[in-house]
């Protein structure tokens, strides 16, 4: 019981650290394209790590001896992980394509912040 708690806390802590890195990147980087580098990667892994930790917790704490609709929650969390892995890069790509086609200029080294 204690072991699973420690593993889950490790997962959650790693996820929240990556999510904070993504937000710091969103605030600190100089222009739109580079900001999406931070959010597209760090948020994906951070959220997946947090949900994976919760999946492990549910699988070992709530699932044993429960009814079927409770036992299916880890499967739904797995669907959520797959969906985030597919949808997050695609959404990033869609916003980036829209910005590129409407002519947002990328930042070059030495320019002012945008």
């Amino acid at each position, binding site marked *: 019981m204690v072991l699973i*708690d420690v593993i*889950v*806390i490790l997962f*959650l802590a790693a996820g*929240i650290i990556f*999510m*904070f890195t*993504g*937000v710091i990147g*969103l*605030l600190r980087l100089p222009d*739109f394209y580079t*900001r*999406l580098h931070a*959010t597209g990667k760090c*948020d994906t892994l951070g*959220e997946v790590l*947090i*949900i994976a930790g*919760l999946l492990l*917790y*549910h699988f070992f704490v*709530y699932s044993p001896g429960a009814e079927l*609709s*409770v036992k299916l*929650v880890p499967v*739904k*969390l797995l*669907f*959520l992980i797959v*969906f*985030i892995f597919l*949808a*997050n890069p*695609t*959404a*990033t790509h*869609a*916003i980036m*394509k*829209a*910005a590129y*086609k*409407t002519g*947002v200029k990328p930042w070059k080294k030495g320019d002012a912040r*945008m």
Partner: protein
Amino acid sequence: MIEVFLAIALLIALTILLSLYRAALGPGVFNRVAAINVIGTKTIVLLVIIGFYFGQPWFFIDIALLYAVLNFIGTLAFAKYLERGEVWS
């Protein structure tokens, strides 16, 4: 474990608050759309973790799944609209 879930939920709320700076002030519409997409994906995780905090995750996971799909479609529609000036072509 309840305290851990509460702490993680509060930290996620803090990251949402920080992203809100970019959504409110970020120069140009694209920075705002990107920030709103980020806030949406963080909200999914927040919903799941609130379910665990109340000890009944099976009530919240369906809402989280639905919110994930809606957030993705909303971002795609917004990007299409900004790119072409219309959603359907």
